[in-house]
């Protein structure tokens, strides 16, 4: 055991200092940021700027009411109006000419676009919006809502409804989403928040398993190609060597996760990004650790018989492919975590950690599910570790041709 720790220390210290580790340390957050934070950050930035919108309302059907409503209802973070409405008006000019002026203002970037209120809007119910970019759905929805409100207001007043009551009738609706848990707690949470909390855990776990699995295979293959393995095998038992590598690389992974956690907390406090709902997350820890060991054993079994870097790359990509499968189900699982197939798959040890990482942040699975999945996972990890030990013992001394499955099975039997 003492020698296992010496191996673990070497694997850890020498890799923590290596360029590859430092680079991979930054790649992961970059990907996360690219996927999760960047779109909302960009959106937020655009929302931070005031837009000037033109208004062509030749018959003054809705003005000045519309101007006041749009400027008052939507505000930026600093309470400034989000939209500044600029009325396009020239005495003795017809609607067509006013629109021409509007167009030239759009092209000269003086306004982002303009709203055209046709004189017969009460009949057609059809205002128009002109802009070089008509893809901003949020702008459209906001303008539509305001115009609809004004039209409704007028119509109600026309029919003799008290203007004070009208205001109450057309009060905007704001849907608030609340997640409830069996414990009776209620918590504000949107789809995106849940999606990202599940997704980030899944990604973190898979990335950690994939990268450290690759490091594990690479280190064994390197030691085999340059025959260092002979000196190692003559200095400690193969069990010590395997255990040492797994312990060292787990510590490496935990360092990585620890640093990410710190970065994450820093990001949350710095930018005020919320999105992680952290209840029940502690329960992911055993899945994380046992799942990690499960895959470490798999990487040892498939990786240690190899003798070249190319083969190692090929084989790791297969294992990573299996690791990717849960991502296909991620959307379905989040929308409908109780689905039988999602539940069924979480009992298969290959998928247990990832599917539980999807399920737990959304809806706490039943105690039965948790006990049984952890049981199956633990048992299969123990069996796999035993097999891995047998395979590793023989594999580290077999060079050249990749052994067949039958051969590996024989190693397990006779090892």
């Amino acid at each position: 055991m003492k020698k296992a720790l010496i191996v673990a220390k070497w694997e850890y210290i020498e890799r923590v200092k290596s360029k590859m580790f430092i680079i991979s340390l930054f790649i992961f957050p970059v990907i996360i940021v690219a996927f999760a934070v960047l779109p909302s950050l960009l959106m937020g930035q655009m929302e931070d700027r005031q837009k000037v919108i033109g208004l062509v309302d030749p018959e003054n059907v809705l003005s000045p009411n519309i101007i006041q409503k749009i400027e008052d209802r939507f505000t930026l973070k600093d309470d400034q109006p989000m939209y500044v409405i600029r009325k396009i008006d020239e005495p003795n000019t017809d609607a067509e000419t006013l629109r021409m002026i509007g167009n030239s203002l759009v092209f000269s970037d003086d306004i982002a676009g303009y709203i055209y209120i046709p004189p017969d809007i009460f009949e057609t119910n059809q205002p128009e919006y002109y802009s070089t970019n008509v893809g901003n759905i949020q702008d459209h929805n906001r303008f539509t809502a305001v115009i609809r409100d004004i039209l409704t207001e007028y119509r109600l007043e026309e029919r003799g409804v008290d203007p004070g009551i009208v205001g109450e009738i057309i009060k905007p609706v704001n849907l608030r989403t609340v997640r409830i848990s069996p414990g009776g707690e209620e918590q504000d949470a949107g789809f995106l928040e849940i999606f990202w909390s599940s997704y980030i855990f899944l990604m973190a776990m898979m990335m950690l398993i994939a990268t450290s699995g690759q490091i594990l295979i690479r280190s064994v293959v390197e030691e085999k190609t340059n025959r260092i393995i002979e000196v190692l095998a003559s200095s400690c038992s193969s069990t010590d060597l395997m255990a040492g590598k797994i312990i060292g690389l787990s510590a490496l992974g935990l360092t990585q996760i620890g640093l990410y956690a710190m970065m994450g907390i820093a990001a949350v406090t710095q930018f005020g990004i919320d999105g992680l709902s952290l209840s029940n997350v502690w329960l992911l820890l055993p899945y994380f650790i046992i799942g990690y060991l499960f895959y470490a054993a798999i990487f040892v079994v498939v990786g240690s018989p190899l003798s070249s870097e190319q083969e190692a790359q090929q084989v790791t990509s297969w294992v990573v492919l299996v690791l990717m499968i849960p991502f296909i189900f991620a959307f379905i699982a989040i929308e409908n975590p109780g689905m039988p197939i999602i539940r069924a798959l979480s009992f298969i040890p290959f998928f247990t950690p990832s599917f539980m990482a999807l399920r737990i942040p959304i809806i706490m699975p039943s105690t039965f599910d948790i006990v049984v999945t952890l049981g199956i996972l633990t048992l299969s990890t123990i069996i796999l570790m035993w097999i891995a030990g047998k395979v590793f013992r023989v594999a580290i001394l077999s060079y050249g041709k990749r052994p067949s499955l039958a051969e590996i099975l024989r190693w397990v039997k006779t090892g």
Partner: protein
Amino acid sequence: MIEVKNLYKTFTTVIAVNDVSFKVEPGRVFGLLGPNGAGKTTTIRMMLNIIQPDAGDIIFDGRPFSIDIQNTIGYLPEERGLYRKNKLMHTIQYFAGLKGVSSKEAKKLGMYWLERFDLTDYANNKVEELSKGNQQKVQFIISVLHSPKYIILDEPFSGLDPVNQILLKDIIGDLRKEGKVLIFSTHQMEQAEKMCDDVCIINRGRVVMYGKLAEEKKKYGVNNIMIEFEGDGSMLEKIGGVKRAAIYSNFAELEIDSNAKPRNIIHEASKDLDIRKFEVKEPTLNAIFLNLVGSTVEEVERKHEEEQLKEEAV
């Protein structure tokens, strides 16, 4: 002393080690010899407890293998390499640590050995910045740093330039004087001849010769002739009285019948060849091997390679 008793090891199709026994005594250089593929490395791996024998015992000064014994063995494998990206001193400290030497002690010993091999300036360099020959020296340092009692060197001279070969030979000589149990494994008989006190020759997993080198040579008599020549030497084996001939491009070793006369041999040979040197002498290990096995070391190795290629093709 290491005693190897009746060792057997079978792999799927071949008997790699077949009833091998020998004793390695302290303060002497023991040569474990034989062609590539004869079973030397398998025997060594069993001695190191890397693989388990099917039968037989390996006893270290009266005790079986244990972790304590593991820490007193130094091993230089035949094919070697080092971690390329790591610093020299760190690498040395790691391997010493695995043999139970503290990091501080390892640094001290490491500096001593680096100085002895003229590598002090490289202590903080990455291994990949060292030349191939210097890396070989580092590997040797790793195998002896923890002052092992038992030292197993598999082809230690391969890849070393002549200057460093001499340096290594001197160091092996020192280790011998210190009373270490030294095993020197090689397929190069000429080299073994210069180094070894005792020899054990293995062929196809079996011991074909074992004993003190000087006595064994005497046993195989003086019916040996060494010729250096110019011309096509293939005719030498056809000369009457020549029992066996190991013929190289301009040099041959002949074993002759006990009643054949060297005078006749030189007479016949000079008809076709320009003879530059003719000597009646003790047989070399190569000649003894030829006598015992019926083919030269090179022939056995070539055949072994062909067999392996065939097996891989199946």
